[in-house]
């Protein structure tokens, strides 16, 4: 592995009685695309905020580009570019004015400043909107402008906190094209947080984080291989009875996922027919697939990523849908 550019040891951050980040340790190599995958409230953003010097850790230490995030804050700030979940643009200024403010604040030399602004606007395809106020931009355009701004001072590490949150699928794909192109051009280290599986798949290494702890950290392939084969899902009329039966007959302990049972077995395609034949509980639906990072997450934490992010109304609706049937 190349020289680590981010080093985190036993990092802890508390808010009152809540431990948002609980003695987390990891390193990110120079030039790596590293992703934190986890549900909202898992501690991803808190970790980023500590790494970018916005929050002070309660315990442990962290360094970025060799600088300590507590004692060498200015050096850390100069080494990193940031794109936050929520827009941090001044909407009443133009795209160009936003970039210029950033360039002045980071002391980008005057000679290269205008040229870089031109290049970066070109890269994120906003050259024609250079003099438009940001207020008139769509969500995707704002995010692209923020990515350009984050790179203006040639940082060593780019932090992307949920860079595609709240964007439609087409725009998400577009943003990703930009991020990957940038990486190729600049050999940049990218630290990404996301709760989208497909975004984490792109990363070289993924840290799965839940309740402030890293529960697994490896390449997406290794994480999936560790699942031990294929994923079988079974939706039985009585999931509890079916689960008990599966444990008895096949020695598996299924996890619950959106009202279905799921477990992984080697050679799922051969095992599934036998299971269906021998199950006495009535089965409504079955499924068989290669494991995804979602399965890895489910296995490691015992719950699905998506269940946690549902708002109370979604929860109530799902409850009604589940329990309303048959009445």
């Amino acid at each position: 592995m190349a020289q680590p550019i981010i080093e985190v040891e036993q990092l802890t951050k508390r808010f009152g009685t809540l431990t948002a980040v609980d003695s987390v340790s990891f390193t990110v190599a120079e030039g790596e695309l590293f992703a934190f995958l986890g549900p909202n409230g898992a501690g991803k953003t808190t970790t980023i905020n500590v790494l970018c010097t916005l929050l002070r850790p309660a315990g442990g230490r962290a360094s970025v580009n060799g600088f300590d995030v507590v004692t060498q804050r200015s050096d850390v700030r100069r080494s990193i570019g940031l794109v936050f979940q929520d827009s941090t643009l001044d909407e009443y200024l133009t795209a160009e004015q936003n970039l210029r403010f950033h360039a002045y604040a980071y002391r980008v030399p005057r000679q290269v400043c205008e040229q870089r602004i031109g290049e970066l606007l070109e890269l994120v395809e906003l050259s024609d909107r250079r003099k438009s106020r940001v207020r008139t931009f769509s969500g995707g355009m704002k995010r692209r402008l923020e990515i350009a701004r984050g790179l203006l001072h040639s940082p060593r590490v780019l932090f992307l906190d949920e860079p595609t949150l709240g964007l439609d699928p087409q725009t998400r794909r577009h943003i990703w094209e930009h991020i990957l192109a940038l990486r190729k051009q600049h050999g940049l280290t990218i630290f990404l947080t996301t709760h989208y599986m497909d975004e984490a798949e792109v990363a070289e290494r993924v840290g799965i984080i839940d309740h402030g702890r890293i529960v697994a950290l490896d390449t997406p392939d290794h994480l999936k291989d560790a699942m031990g084969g294929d994923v079988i899902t079974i939706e039985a009329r009585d999931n509890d009875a079916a689960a008990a039966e599966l444990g008895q007959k096949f020695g598996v302990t299924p996890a619950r996922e959106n009202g279905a049972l799921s477990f992984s077995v080697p050679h799922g395609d051969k095992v599934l027919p036998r299971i269906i034949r021998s199950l006495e509980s009535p089965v409504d639906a079955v499924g068989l697939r290669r494991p995804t990072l979602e399965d890895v997450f489910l296995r490691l934490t015992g719950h699905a990523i998506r269940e946690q992010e549902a708002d109370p109304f979604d929860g109530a609706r799902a409850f009604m849908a589940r329990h309303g049937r048959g009445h």
Partner: protein
Amino acid sequence: MAEVLVAIRVVAYRELLRFVQEKSRLISSFAMPLLFLVIFGAGFTRSIGTMAPGVDFVQFMYPGIVAMTVLMNSVMSGLSVVWDREFGFLKEILVAPLARSGIVLGKAAGAAIVALLQGAVMLLLAPVVGVSLTPLLVLKLIPLLVIISLSLSGLGLLVASRMRSQQGFQLIVQLLVFPLIFLSGVFFPVNNVPAWLETVSKANPLTYGVDAIRQLFLAAEGGGAQAIGVTVFGHTMTVLQDISVVAAFGLVLLLLATWSFEKQE
């Protein structure tokens, strides 16, 4: 040190950019002082007559109105901090390699420049209301207005350092600004009023700002200043002493505002 200077420059630069682009703020900041000047002036001049030998009510009130214009704009500098926090831009400022003290001073400097511009427009009205204006007087007024503005920005920034919503900020500012204005000697001399009113007024730092501006004007008019000047424990404050009070007050507020920004996460 470089981080403080860069912060002051870049933050003040943006304040000015924003000011130029916000026409409504430009207009509203003149409206109230102008209303006071015109309505109070027209209403009271006949019935009140002269405040001191050779000083009629408008001539008395006018310097106070200039101070009021500066006050309103300076305190409102805090609003831009709350605005930035609400719309996320504050985060961009806070993660940049800029010193917190520089950010606070930059906001204050931006407000001071804006306040100076507005003060200048008010000064243009001087001949209209019968107050004479000399180049020397204007030259003396500029540093005075800058100091008053920087000090009062400190007040706005201190309030803003912890406020999360614009409505909340406006509410607190209204609660602060009106007593500050009415108890600052803009509308009546604070020397011969009931004792309680005198005590409160003389505890108000803005009183000394108003007094300093007024002294400069009346001195230029030729006399009358002595009779109206603010007295503290029997001593009539000089312009320099007035300015010192305002500056000390501002220094404390700016330090508190910086401290408050540094401490928050």
